[in-house]
Structures are given as C-alpha cells and as structure tokens.
C-alpha cells in the first residue's frame, strides 16, 4: 500500500513521467493490476464454493437436507441486508447502473460482499451462478483502484470494465469471453481506448487463474463431426432456446414480483425460496448449485435420462432459479443459463432423435453446447458473448458454424419478445440505462443549469406599459419574466408576440399594468428537472422555450436553440477520442 501511496504522490519522478506521457499507458498498467485482483477474487469464490459444497454433500441424502438452501439463502440475505447494507440482486444490473449514472463509482464493500453472500447461497445448494457476483466484485475492485488514483469518469469506467473482464476471464478461464462480455454487456462502446486495457486485464485475470489452478478448460474437449444436417437442425434448437430464455426471464420476473408483495422480512422470504429449491433438489439433485458437474456429464454424453425426464429438468431448473434469485438469494444467472441451455439442447436432441430415427445426428454433447450458447445469447441478448464463451469453455472451434447460427437466431427471437435483456430490463424501465454516444446519454449529462440563459430582463408587476416599452428597446429577447417586486416571486411571463398589438397604442401606455397583460399559465422548469422530461414537455405544449424557476424565483430561460448548440457540443466532446 505504501508503494502505491508513494506512487500516487508522485514520489517516483520517472514513474510520474511515464504516466503523464500517455494516459493510455497508465490505464493499461492499472488495468493489468485490476485484472489480476479480480482474477484472485474469482478464484477465491470458486474455491469457497467447492469447499462449502463438499462440506455439505455429506448431509445431502438426509431427509431434512431440503432446508439447507433455505438456511444458505437466509444467511446470505441477512449478510447483505444487515451487515453490508446492500440490496439483493445479482450484481450485473448494479454494475450497469453505476456505469450509466455515476461514471462507475462503486463502494469498496461491494468488492467482497457478493462473494460471501453468493458463496452462502450457491454453496448451500441454491440454483444460481458465481459469475455475476464475481463481475460485481471485479467491477468494484476496478472502481476503487481508479478512485485511489483519482482518475476521471471515463478512465474509471474503463477500469470497471477491466475488473469485469478479469473476473469473467478467471472464473471461466476464458479471456476472450471476458473481453467480449465486458464490451458487449457492461461498457457498450467499442473503442480502442476501452478495448486495449480491458483486453490486457482479461489476459491478466486468466493468467492468474492458470497460475493458481492450472490451465484447465471447464468442460472436456470433444471432437464433434458436424454435418450440414446438424447445422440445419440448429435452427430448431435456436427456436427452442429462445422459448426457454423467454420462459426463464418471465419466471424470474414473476417470482420477483410475487416475493415483493409478500410482507415478510427479506431473510424469511429468502429462506422460504431456498426451502422450495431444496425441495425440488430433493427429487432432482441436478438443479442444485451452479450445476457445472451436470453440464460436464451432458457434454460428455454420459447423461442417460430420457426425453421426458430432461424436459421436466428444464422446468425444474427454471423454477429453482426463479425461487433462488427472485426470493432474495444471491447469485448470478449465468451458470443456471448454461445448465438450462444444456438441458434444452439435450431435450431437443432426444426429441429429433425420436422424430427422425433414421438420421445419424452428431453427439448429444454438441447439442448441449449449442443449447448453452442459445440460452446465454437469449437471456443476455449478447450473441458474441454466447459464441466466444462456449468456444472457450469447451475448447472446441469446430462447432462454430452452428454456434453462430444458434446465438444469432436466439438473440433475435428473444429481442422481439423481450426488447430489453434480463440485465437491463429494470434499468431501461427506470430510465437509468444510458449507453455511451446515445441521445439519452447526452441529455442525461446536460443539466438545466448548464443551459439556462440569464440575459432576460425581469420586470415588476406594477410597471406601466409605457415604461415597459422603453425597457423592451434595450432587450434582445422576446420574453420578459414578471416578478413581485417585494417578494421576488415569479408571477408570469410576457411574450412579445402576445402583446404586439398593444405596443403601438400610446393610449394604453399609462393605463395598462404589466400584471394585466402577463401570461400566468406558464409551464416552468426546475433546475433539477431531467432534460429529457423538459424536452417532452416542450414538445407536448409546442414550446420553443420555457422559464426556469427555482424556489419560486425566476432563474432564466431554457430554449431549444441553445439546447441544440450545447447538445451538439456535448455530442462532439463525448464521441471525440
């Protein structure tokens, strides 16, 4: 730590020179550090999960074992709620929210809170994955390191990406998937400025994992001989995975809403959800935990159950996942997606085998792989992540053709039913999903305060029209706000267009007071209003400018003309790299 503090304070002149030389070098160096740290975090969670799962496996066969996931989920939600004071949720939307709204600012405690809570949930048998918690802690590590070096928002977001990439790369031992997932899902901006440090972090994350755990791929690499007919059959599989993806998304949301309406302490709900999962797991042990072991046996083709059983498993896993995550357990959607995907692939394989018994299909393991890709692409609506992840975790490149096909079709189909992906849905609904270089981003960054024009002449309500005409000659604006000269309160607005006909009648000069001719029914804007809302109101009322009023006092005018000017400035500045 001392070393870093000295580094920050610039006590090493050559280092400072190096960093000032180019901030890209700085980002790459810190990115490597972040990648390594988040790789370590990923490994820690992985080890913790394995230990806890093994510890509890002795009790699995006992009749009361179904309460284990309940206890785990309750503990995990108590830990998050009472000790860490963080809401439940699986992590990725939280990271997206922070990147969208706060330039990647995250709390230090987020870098380990989800690791512990998800370890409790999943280790005890809850149906969830370790990836989203690892993503969140990696992101928090990146954000806190960026804060330590007092970097700006753009650099901090890049480092949050580095943390994410390092974590995903380490937990799957899949550097490209880490990079692609980060860019496609977390950052949403493909520029060299982001990609380079994130790629480096990915490398470091994966390298840390290989150093400590050996270079092993998650699932055994098998050789598949894929015929054109298999590729053709994949179109059907893509439809199946899309349907299952939509089912899973809806089930998750439904169970979340149901749980939300039950008035019980959050840990009691988590315990109830966990017990349901435990109950399902009692009959179908394959749905418990992250489920990588099950996937392994399916890919290898040693999963021997029939079509009906597999179909039931798909639904059992969906329900178990919905009860785990929707009712307050902590964990990610990634691993359950992989499990459900491989179940779906297997089910589809069994199904077409019965339908066309004469055709020799490729090994069922291949369909399990493709099913995983289909589900990941469908749920995350991130086709590239689906493709690269599956290629990397299975070490097989020969499935790439059907893989691309399944990913693409599944994403497209899901998108037409669920326009926003599972991660982004809630953020989009609340207007918190702001991708770089979009209209929403620019409007969210500009504030009313930055746009307000203060060159209006404020006139008192008791002024006579004759005096007003003189004032008018000095102003180059068409709007004159009227205020109470004693209280300073904003009363209304005079628009030249409205009073033009009276202006040339000297008879009225001495008889009309401004109070009588001002428009009191004006729509006003507050300083804290969102610009998108302001614009909507302008469009609705067909206005080109509106007065800005704060605590009953006139501040200035906001107009579309200035907005265009500033909007353009902002867009150019934001997209210029």
């Amino acid at each position, binding site marked *: 730590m001392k070393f870093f503090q000295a580094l920050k304070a610039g006590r090493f002149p050559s280092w400072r020179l190096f960093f000032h030389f180019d901030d890209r070098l700085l980002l790459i160096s810190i990115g490597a550090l972040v990648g390594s740290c988040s790789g370590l975090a990923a490994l820690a969670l992985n080890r913790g999960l394995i230990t806890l799962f093994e510890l509890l496996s002795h009790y699995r066969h006992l009749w009361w074992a179904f309460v284990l996931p309940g206890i785990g989920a309750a503990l995990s939600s108590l830990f998050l709620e009472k000790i860490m004071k963080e809401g439940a949720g699986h992590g990725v939307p939280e990271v997206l929210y922070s990147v969208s709204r706060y*330039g990647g600012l995250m709390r230090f405690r987020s870098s380990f809170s989800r690791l512990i809570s998800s370890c409790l949930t999943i280790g005890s048998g809850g149906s969830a994955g370790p990836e989203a918690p690892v993503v969140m802690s990696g992101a928090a590590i990146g954000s806190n390191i960026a804060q330590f070096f007092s*970097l700006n928002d753009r650099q901090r977001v890049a480092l949050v990406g580095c943390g994410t990439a390092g974590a995903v790369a380490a937990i799957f031992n899949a550097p490209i998937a880490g990079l692609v997932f980060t860019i496609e899902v977390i950052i949403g901006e493909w520029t060299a400025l982001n990609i380079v440090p994130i790629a480096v972090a990915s490398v470091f994350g994966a390298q840390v994992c290989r150093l400590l755990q050996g270079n092993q791929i998650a699932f055994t690499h098998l050789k598949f001989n894929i015929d054109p007919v298999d590729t053709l059959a994949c179109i059907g599989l893509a439809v199946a995975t899309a349907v299952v993806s939509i089912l899973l998304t809806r089930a998750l949301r439904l169970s979340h809403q149901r749980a939300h309406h039950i008035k019980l302490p959050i840990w009691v709900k988590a315990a109830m959800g966990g017990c349901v999962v435990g109950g399902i797991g009692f009959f179908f042990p394959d749905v418990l935990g992250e489920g990588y072991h099950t996937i392994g046996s399916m890919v290898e083709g040693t999963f021997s159950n029939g079509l009906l059983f597999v179909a039931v498993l798909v639904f059992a896993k969906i329900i178990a996942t919905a009860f785990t995550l929707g009712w307050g357990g902590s964990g990610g959607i990634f691993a359950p997606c992989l499990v459900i995907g491989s179940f779906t692939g297997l089910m589809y394989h069994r199904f077409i085998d019965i339908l066309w018994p004469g055709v020799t299909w490729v090994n069922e393991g291949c369909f399990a792989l493709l099913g995983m890709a289909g589900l990941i692409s469908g749920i995350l609506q991130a086709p590239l992540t689906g493709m690269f992840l599956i290629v990397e975790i299975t070490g097989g490149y020969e499935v790439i053709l059907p893989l691309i096909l399944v990913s693409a079709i599944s994403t497209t189909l899901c998108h037409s039913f669920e326009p926003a992906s599972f991660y982004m849905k809630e953020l989009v609904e609340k207007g918190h999903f702001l991708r770089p270089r979009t209209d929403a981003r620019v409007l969210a960054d500009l*504030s009313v305060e930055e746009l307000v024009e203060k060159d209006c002449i404020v006139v008192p309500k008791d002024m006579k029209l004759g005096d007003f005409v003189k004032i008018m000659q000095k102003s180059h604006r068409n709007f004159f706000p009227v205020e109470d000269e004693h209280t300073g309160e904003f009363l209304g607005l005079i628009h030249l267009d409205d009073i033009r006909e009276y202006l040339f009648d000297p008879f009225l000069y001495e008889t009309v007071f401004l109070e009588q001719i001002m428009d009191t029914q004006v729509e006003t804007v507050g300083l804290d209003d969102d610009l998108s809302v302001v614009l909507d109101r302008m469009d609705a009322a067909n206005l080109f400018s509106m007065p800005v009023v704060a605590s009953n006092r006139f501040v200035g005018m906001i107009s579309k003309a200035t907005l265009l000017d500033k909007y353009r400035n902002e867009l150019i*500045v934001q997209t210029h790299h």
Partner: protein
Amino acid sequence: MKLTLKELAAALSIPPGTVERWIRQGNIPVRIKEGACVFSFQSLQKWARENNLTYQPAGAKNSAMPADGPDTLAAAMERGGVYYKITGESVPEILRAGVDRIPLLETQGQRETLYESLLAREELMSTGIGKGVAIPHPRTPLDYGEIPAFITTCFLKNPADYKAVDRQPVFVLFFLVCPSSKRHLQLLARLSFCLRDEAFIEFLHHTPDQADFLAKIAELDQRFDTP
C-alpha cells in the same frame, strides 16, 4: 497553465458547470490540482479545435474586440466638425458646399463619391425632415476604411429651400456618414431623439458656437442613455 474554473470556462465560452463535468468525466485534457485547473496550452487548444470550440484567453479577447460598441453623438459630431455661414441656393449647391467642408475626407475622389451618393439619396426623397433641419446621408453605408462614422454639422448663412417634407426652408444640415448600417441607425436614433426636443430646435435657431453646441449634444447623449 493554471486557471480557475471560471476563467477557463470564460475562455472556452462554456458554462462553468459544463467544464467542471467534462473534467470529472475526462472529456477535456484538464486536471484539477488544488482547486485550480491545470492544463497544457497546446493540448487544450488542439482539443478545442477538434471539438468545434474556441479557446480564447481573457486578454486576447479584449484586444480582439471590434470597436462596435455604441458611439455617442457628441464624439461623432466632434469628428465631423461644425461649420457656419454655408452658402448655397439649391440642394446640389448646399451639398457641394457641405461636402467640401468635411475634414476627414482626404482625396477629391472620396468627396466626389460622397457628393454623388448624397445627391442620389436626395433625388429619391428629400432628407429635409422638417422644422428646418436636414440630415443628408448616403443610401448605403460608405466605408472609407480607416475613417469612422462622423456627423458634419453645417449652419446655412440663409435658410434655403431644400424641398423639405414640411416645405419649410432649411437652416441646418447634419451630414451623416457611417461605415455600417448598424452604426448609421444608432446615430440616427440619437439624432432623432435630439430633434424631437422642441427646446433643442429653438437652441439651434440661435446658431450656438461650436463649444456650446457640442456641450448640449453631450448632455442630450446622456439623457438618451438613461431612460
């Protein structure tokens, strides 16, 4: 370079709030160090150029300011001079005599163009605006380069028929020559403000000497500026 946030915002002609946010977001090559904005002049200027903005430090801005602020009648009249006992029976004769007096015009060519354009304007419609006053001026601004706007005041020896709108003989002429229409309107507005004042017309009838006349104009200028 080191500037405060406000100075930097003024140099870029952007609200300080925006500049602050850009620094925070990393959109501008400026760092905050001990409350001051630290940046390299070259990189900021390059950045401004690339982003369709201009970086103009406060000093440079003032010197580059065009002399387009409001002019006063008194200053313009002092430049143009006040002349008495001008003789002439007809419009061309009076104009010729007036143009010959203008001190700022250096060459005969300049006098000739001015005379012709004044005459053309009179043929269109007399500039005798009534009450014995005429304001001869060219129809379009005449830009003599270095010469600023001026008003040359000429009191006639004998009031002459100038085809004024109210048919009254003219006794005083204000030659109004400006390099731009904006300046022309500014000065014309001030002049017309003075001529609306009956007391001022009465004052003119007494043919005041140059010092008295300019003092009176300066006084009216001030009244014009304070509504």
